[in-house]
């Protein structure tokens, strides 16, 4: 099947392209971009994309897919469908599954299920330590061989500094990125909300910024000492952005990401005890939010993730502190990012790069671009499409979104994965 997508605005940060052009596909791969079709190319079908944007399929560094285990809602089949409805075609799933992805068997199970679903590219992240307990190392070589693209501790950071140092040192010789989320569990002290004006008023147990920054300081020193390529996940504090900027200036081989909801929501949203706003790390102050957004603009923050966590209704129907933290975020990643472009002066190229080329480079994979001969993963977006989020209409099994009723400009019309259409917006005419 040869396909030509014509007259769209093709945006590909990997090649620094932003122009009205045609995109040509052949046998599931990108055949080229340009006014003229590649030599010998004749399209079997043409899609007119006049007035539309063509973006590389998004790469999400953190999305829970509900499998294996019943802890979270959804399945690989349902959540990859949700991903492509959000324009995301490559997904890293963290190891906090049940059982934990600390073995070849679980990694292979995830890959098999993803192949059966055939909707998006699923990249398992292996557990750095067995059962994520932070004690004994997982079989890192075996996990890498099985296809894990990175290692992490998900939301259970290693507390013992010696264990972390050993884990990093051992991993350093395996050429695989380690993703670290920084949190000192003692400073967190069972807190559920940012320590600030709101937690003081509401009497919610507090998580001080130092729970993140002091762990980040320790981790940066160990990363420097071991020389490992590290990626810092889901930063939430202004001070963390400064620390990452300093470390990058010093030449450390590090990158970092922020969850998209941290760029829109703050501690103020927790007033009213709505458990949909219960997330890890917690929503922080306005100043923190500003600093994170600024970090994205200046390039200190490399990637934006959905931190998708589909949660059963019953696990949110609890008092704030007892509810499971997390947001069902696959379908709002790109819309919320475009909102930052429309409303907060974020450069479009920087925005798209943070969810395509940058996360792909962090993993050392080739998706997230429209380069010739790469898998034809992309989406077609109507930049003027207006819509309002209705959780009940979300594709994900997790309807836990705090963005109910938010208005967005920019509709994802179609998503292609390996050259095949995998999503078509139900509002489009047949």
């Amino acid at each position, binding site marked *: 099947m040869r396909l030509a997508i014509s007259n769209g605005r093709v945006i590909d940060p990997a090649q620094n392209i932003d122009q009205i052009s045609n995109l040509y596909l052949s046998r599931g791969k990108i055949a080229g971009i340009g006014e003229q079709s590649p030599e010998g190319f004749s399209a079997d079908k043409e899609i007119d994309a006049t007035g539309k944007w063509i973006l590389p399929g998004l790469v999400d560094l953190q999305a829970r897919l509900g499998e294996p285990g019943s802890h979270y809602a959804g399945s690989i089949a349902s959540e990859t469908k949700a991903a492509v409805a959000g324009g995301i075609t490559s997904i890293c799933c963290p190891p906090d599954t049940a059982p934990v992805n600390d073995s070849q068997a679980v990694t292979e199970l995830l890959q098999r299920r993803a192949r059966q679903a055939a909707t998006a590219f699923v990249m398992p992240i292996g557990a750095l330590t067995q059962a994520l307990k932070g004690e004994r190392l997982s079989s890192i070589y075996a996990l890498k061989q099985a296809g894990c693209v990175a290692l992490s501790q998900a939301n259970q950071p290693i507390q013992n500094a010696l264990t972390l140092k050993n884990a990093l040192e051992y991993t350093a010789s395996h050429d695989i990125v380690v993703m670290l989320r920084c949190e000192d569990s003692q400073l967190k002290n069972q807190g559920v909300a940012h320590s*600030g004006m709101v937690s003081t008023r509401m*009497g919610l*147990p507090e998580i001080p910024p130092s729970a993140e920054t002091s762990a980040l300081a320790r981790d940066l020193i160990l990363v420097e000492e071991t020389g490992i390529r590290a990626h810092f996940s889901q930063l939430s504090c202004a001070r963390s952005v400064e620390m990452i900027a300093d470390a990058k200036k010093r030449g450390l081989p590090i990158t970092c990401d922020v969850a998209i909801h941290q760029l829109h929501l703050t501690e103020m*949203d927790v007033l*009213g*005890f709505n458990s949909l706003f219960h997330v890890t790390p917690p929503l922080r102050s306005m100043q923190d939010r500003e600093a994170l957004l600024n970090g994205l603009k200046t390039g200190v923050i490399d990637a934006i993730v959905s931190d998708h966590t589909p949660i059963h209704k019953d*696990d949110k129907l609890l008092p*704030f*502190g007892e509810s499971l933290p997390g947001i069902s975020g696959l379908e709002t990643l790109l819309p919320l990012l475009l909102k930052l472009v429309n409303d907060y002066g974020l450069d479009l190229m920087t925005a798209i790069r943070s969810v395509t080329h940058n996360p792909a480079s962090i993993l050392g994979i080739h998706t997230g671009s429209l380069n010739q001969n790469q898998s034809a993963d992309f989406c077609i977006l109507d930049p003027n499409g207006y819509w309002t989020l209705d959780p009940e209409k979300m594709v994900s099994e997790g309807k836990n979104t705090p963005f109910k009723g938010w208005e967005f400009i920019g509709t994802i019309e179609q998503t292609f994965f390996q050259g095949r259409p995998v999503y078509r917006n139900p509002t489009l005419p047949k």
Partner: protein
Amino acid sequence: MIARLSSPNIQLNELGKLHHFLTLEGLKQHHLIEILDTTKSFINPNTNEIKKVPLLRGKSIMNLFFEPSTRTRTTFEIAEKRLSADISSLDIQTSATKKGESLLDTLWNLQAMQADMFVIRHAQSGAAQFFAQHVAPHVHVLNAGDGQHAHPTQAMLDMFTIRKHKGDIFDLKIAIVGDVLHSRVVRSQIQALSILEAREIRVVGPKTLMPENPEALGVHIYHDMEEGIAGVDVIIMVRLQNERMTSALIPSEKEFFKLYGLTEERLALAKPDAIVMHPGPINRGVEIESMVADGSQSVILEQVTYGIAVRMAVMSIIMSNAAQLSQYKAEQVAQTEQDRLQEENA
């Protein structure tokens, strides 16, 4: 920032009157004054005795205690009996791992047993509001303490006690001493005092037990006890819990007493007619010297008595508001019907 409206005050009904009693935040002065005045009507001014009245006859009240309590629970039960309500009390052992479905199922099951009002104590901040959001529209929720968030009836009985001894609150300086950070009682006291426009609210204690953002509460922080209570009209001592020592927030009871214990010498720094309060149970020799606790300026035991009357007041106000609302709605229906008939005739 996108402007987002804060959630509406779910404890008020369409007429702006109390439907639930969850927190003092967001209430107006007239709500508090109504509670204080009603409380007064339940107490015999000469004997301090509390009358038994038939105001809640035929109403069913369930006390749900997800967290152990003796004092608050007992005063609630006595208050309910004096209002002639049918009562049942349940200790519900709950674990954080329990599914929400079963938590709400518990509530709905009890609601199906014809409950008109739930009195709820729970270890999670915001729990009372959570239950209020999920009960049937005709059922009322009364917060008997949720996590570190609020304990509004306790604060109201403290206001009653202050008002009884000192008259209007707006001219008073009040010092609250001890563990402010972890206390739901203090949070509610501060809100009550703010709504009643107290002249000055001070909180006194070591930095580890003070909120990091006092401006969020509208209080002045003192780390020095002598300075903090100098010239005040009311001193409220707060109970110090053992776990504050084990979590390294303060070194020892002995050191706490040396720095913040209320002794006769320190009490002399306050106004000569200052009163001493404590929500109980008191730790003699930790927060307060026995001489002071039992002394002439102490009103600690009175507080307990008033606690019954205040809870009677809140429950009877809520039930009479409900009656008023249904009458109002019935009148509206009648009015609409009348209008319709008039239109037809015309």
